[in-house]
C-alpha cells in the first residue's frame, strides 16, 4: 500500500517537473513582467508532494513494512524507533529521496525569495533546477527506487548497520545534503545567468544568501560526520583524510572560495566569470562526491552504500552536467579586462581563492591519482594522511598570514596604516608560542609555525572584535568565522603535537605503567541489551603527576541484527583534554588489546568549527534583515 502511494507520488513529481519546465518556457514567451501564477502553484504542489512522498517512506520504516526492499534491507522491527526513522536516509535509496527533496524545496524557495530579479533569470533558474530534479527522479525510478516491492513479504528485516545507529549519524546526512545539494540552486542560477546575460552585481546578490546557507550547513555537516567518526570508529582523531571525507571537503573549498569572491562581484562588479565557474564547480563536485561514494570506487569506511550500476547512472548524469555547463560557459565567455591594484581587498580575496583552489586540487589529486594509476598501470598505491599533511599544512601557515592581513585592506587601493600593530601582534604570537612549547618541552618546527600563524590571526581578530564593539558598522560574521578558523588551526596544532598514545596487551587484574600514567584493568562485565550483548571493561587510569583518577569503560558489542561486532570507545572529555580508550579482545587468549590516547583540546576543535559555521549563519541573518 505504502509502496503504491510512494510510487504514485514519484510519478506525480516527475510529471510536475515536466509541467513546470513546460509552463516556464510558455511563460518566457509572454510579455508580462510577472511570473504566471501557475508556476508558483505547481512549484508549491511539487514541494508538498515530495515531502509527503518522503514521509510515506518514513512511515514505512516506522511500521516496519517489509514489503519494501529498502525497509527490509535496512531496518528491523526490534530497532529503537529513533533509528527506524533515521534509517530512512541511512541507505542509498532513501538518501536519494532526501536529495530530491532538497533540490525541490530550494527550487521553490529560490522562486519565492527572488521576486526583485528579472523574470527571465528566475524562469531559467527554475528550468535548470527542474532538469536536475528530473535527472534524480529518473535515477530513483529506474535504478534506486526506495518503494520497490518484495514478494513474498519477509517476516523480519536485515537491520541497519550498528555503527550507523547513532544520533550524530542521524543528523549528519541531512545537514551535509542541505550543504551540497543546496549548491544546486546556484548552479542553476549561474546557468540561467549565462543564458539570459544577467550578470554583474545583481546576480551576486541573488545567490549570496544561498551560498551562505549551503556553506554553513556543509561546515556543520562535515563537523557532525567528523564527531561521529571520532567516537564511533574508535580511531581517536578528528580527520582521517579518508577519501569520502575528502569528497565532502572538495565542495567546501569551492564554496568557501565562492563566499569570498561573491563579495568582490557584488561590490566591484568584477570576476563575474570566475564566480560562475565556482558556482558550477561546487555542484559538479557535489555530484562527483556522490558518484565516488555510491559507485564503490573508493576504498573507505563509507563504502556501505555502493553498487556499480548506480555509479554508471550518476557518471552519465555528471557528464551531461559538465559538458552542458561547459558548453554554455564557453559560448557566453568574454574576456573582460579587469585591473586590480596589487594592494587592495580584491587582491586578498583572490589570494583566498588561490589557496582554496590549491587545497582543492591537492585533495582531488589525492583522490583521483591512485584511481588513474591503477587503471593505467595496474599499480596500486595509497594516498593517506602523510601526503595531505605534508603538502597542505606548510601552506596553511602562509594562508593564515594572508587571512589576517586581508580583511584590513581597503577596496580598490589600500595603504597599510597599522603595520606597527601587526608586527607587534606577530611578536606576541611568537612569544606565546614559545612559552607553550617551553612549558611542555616538545618541539617540531611545523607545529611551531602553525601555532604562531594561527595566534597571529587570533590576536588580530580579537583586536578587531574589541574595536568593532565601539563602531556602529561591524562585520561580526567575518570576524567570528576568521577568529574561529584561527582557533581551529591552533587547536589542531596543539592537539596533534601534545597527544599521547599508547597501546598494549593486558589481562584482567593487571596493571601497566608508562610515562606518568598507571592503568589498571579492574573488571570485565557481560551485559544483555535489547538489540545487542556487550562485554564491558572497566579500567582505572591514574595520572601520577597530577594525582588524578579516571575510570573508563570501553565496550565490545555484539549486535544481533545484523550480526556485527563493534568496538565502542570510552571517552572522558572536558574542555582541556579527552581521555580516549578502546579495547579489543585478542583471539584465543585472555589478553585484551588496549589503546589509550590523551587528546588535548578535542572539544575546542568541535567548538571552533561550530563557530566558523555560526559566522555564516550570522551573515545570513544580517542579510535577511537588510533584505
Amino acid at each position: 500500500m505504502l509502496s503504491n502511494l510512494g510510487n504514485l507520488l514519484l510519478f506525480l513529481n516527475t510529471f510536475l517537473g515536466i509541467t513546470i519546465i513546460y509552463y516556464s518556457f510558455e511563460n518566457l514567451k509572454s510579455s508580462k513582467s510577472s511570473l504566471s501564477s501557475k508556476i508558483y502553484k505547481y512549484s508549491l504542489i511539487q514541494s508538498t508532494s515530495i515531502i509527503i512522498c518522503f514521509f510515506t517512506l518514513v512511515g514505512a520504516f516506522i511500521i516496519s513494512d517489509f514489503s519494501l526492499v529498502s525497509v527490509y534491507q535496512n531496518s528491523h522491527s526490534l530497532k529503537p524507533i529513533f533509528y527506524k526513522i533515521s534509517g530512512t536516509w541511512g541507505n542509498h535509496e532513501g538518501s536519494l529521496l532526501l536529495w530530491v527533496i532538497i533540490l525541490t524545496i530550494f527550487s521553490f524557495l529560490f522562486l519565492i525569495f527572488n521576486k526583485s530579479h528579472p523574470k527571465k533569470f528566475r524562469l531559467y533558474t527554475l528550468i535548470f533546477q527542474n532538469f536536475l530534479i528530473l535527472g534524480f527522479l529518473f535515477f530513483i525510478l529506474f535504478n534506486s527506487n526506495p518503494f520497490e516491492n518484495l514478494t513474498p513479504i519477509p517476516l523480519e528485516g536485515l537491520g541497519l548497520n550498528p555503527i550507523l545507529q547513532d544520533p550524530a549519524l542521524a543528523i549528519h546526512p541531512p545537514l551535509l545534503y542541505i550543504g551540497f545539494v543546496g549548491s544546486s540552486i546556484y548552479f542553476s542560477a549561474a546557468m540561467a545567468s549565462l543564458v539570459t546575460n544577467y550578470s554583474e552585481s545583481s546576480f551576486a546578490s541573488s545567490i549570496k544568501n544561498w551560498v551562505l546557507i549551503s556553506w554553513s550547513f556543509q561546515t556543520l555537516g562535515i563537523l557532525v560526520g567528523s564527531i561521529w567518526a571520532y567516537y564511533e570508529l574508535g580511531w581517536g582523531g578528528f580527520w582521517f583524510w579518508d577519501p569520502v571525507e575528502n569528497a565532502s571537503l572538495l565542495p567546501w573549498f569551492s564554496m568557501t572560495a565562492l563566499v569570498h569572491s561573491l563579495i568582490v562581484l557584488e561590490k566591484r562588479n568584477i570576476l563575474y566569470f570566475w564566480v560562475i565557474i565556482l558556482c558550477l564547480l561546487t555542484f559538479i563536485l557535489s555530484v562527483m562526491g556522490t558518484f565516488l561514494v555510491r559507485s564503490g570506487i573508493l576504498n573507505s569506511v563509507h563504502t556501505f552504500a555502493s553498487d556499480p550500476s548506480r555509479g554508471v547512472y550518476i557518471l552519465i548524469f555528471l557528464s551531461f552536467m559538465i559538458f552542458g555547463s561547459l558548453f554554455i560557459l564557453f559560448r557566453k565567455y568574454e574576456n573582460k579586462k579587469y585591473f586590480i591594484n596589487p594592494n587592495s581587498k580584491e587582491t586578498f580575496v583572490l589570494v583566498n581563492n588561490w589557496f582554496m583552489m590549491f587545497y582543492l586540487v591537492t585533495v582531488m589529486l589525492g583522490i583521483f591519482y591512485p584511481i588513474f594509476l591503477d587503471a593505467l598501470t595496474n599499480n596500486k598505491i595509497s594516498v593517506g594522511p602523510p601526503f595531505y599533511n605534508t603538502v597542505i599544512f606548510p601552506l596553511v601557515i602562509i594562508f593564515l598570514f594572508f587571512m589576517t592581513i586581508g580583511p584590513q585592506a581597503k577596496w580598490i587601493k589600500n595603504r597599510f596604516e597599522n603595520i606597527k600593530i601587526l608586527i607587534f601582534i606577530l611578536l606576541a604570537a611568537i612569544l606565546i608560542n614559545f612559552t607553550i612549547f617551553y612549558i611542555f618541552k616538545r618541539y617540531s618546527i611545523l607545529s611551531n609555525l602553525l601555532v604562531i600563524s594561527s595566534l597571529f590571526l587570533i590576536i588580530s581578530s580579537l583586536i578587531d572584535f574589541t574595536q568593532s564593539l565601539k563602531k556602529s558598522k561591524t562585520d561580526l560574521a567575518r570576524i567570528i568565522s576568521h577568529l574561529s578558523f584561527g582557533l581551529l588551526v591552533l587547536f589542531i596544532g596543539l592537539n596533534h603535537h601534545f597527544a599521547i598514545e599508547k597501546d598494549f596487551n593486558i589481562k584482567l587484574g593487571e596493571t601497566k605503567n608508562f610515562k606518568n600514567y598507571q592503568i589498571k584493568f579492574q573488571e570485565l562485565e557481560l551485559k544483555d541489551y535489547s538489540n545487542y550483548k556487550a562485554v564491558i571493561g572497566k579500567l582505572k587510569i591514574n595520572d601520577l603527576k597530577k594525582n588524578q583518577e579516571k575510570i573508563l569503560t570501553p565496550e565490545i558489542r555484539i549486535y544481533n541484527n545484523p550480526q556485527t561486532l563493534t568496538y565502542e570507545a570510552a571517552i572522558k572529555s572536558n574542555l582541556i583534554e579527552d581521555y580516549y580508550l578502546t579495547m579489543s579482545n585478542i583471539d584465543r587468549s585472555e589478553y585484551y588489546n588496549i589503546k589509550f590516547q590523551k587528546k588535548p583540546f578535542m572539544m575546542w576543535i568541535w567548538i571552533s568549527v561550530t563557530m566558523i559555521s555560526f559566522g555564516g549563519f550570522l551573515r545570513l541573518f544580517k542579510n535577511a534583515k537588510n533584505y
Partner: protein
Amino acid sequence: MKFKLLTLLIVFFLFEVHASSSNVEQNQIFKNIRCLVCQGQSIADSNSDFAQTIKLVIKDKIKEGKTEKEIYNFLIEKYGQWIVYKPPMNGSNFLFWLFPYLIFIAGGVVIIMFFKKKENN
C-alpha cells in the same frame, strides 16, 4: 635589539629541527601503514589480526635498529605500494608530489596577470 631577538629565535628553531629528527616514532609508522584487510584503516586504528602481526613485525624492525624508511621499503617489497599511506617519491609518483605546487605557482601567476593589465591601460 629587534635583530638580536630575531637571531635568537632562528637559533631556537634550528635547535628544534635537530631535536625533532632524532627519534623513530613507532606510532607514526603504524599510522602510515594501511591495514590490508580493513576498509580504509591504518594498522594503528585496526584491531584485526593482520594489523597486530604487522605491528609486531615493525616493533622487531625498530629493535633491530632499522630506520623508518628501511621499514617502509621492507613492507613495500613484501606487500606492494598499496600498504604505505605516503607514496614514495619516485618515478611516476614524483610528478604527483610536485603537481599541487605547480598548480599553486600557476595560480599565483594568474593573479599577477591581473596586475599587469593595469600597467597596459
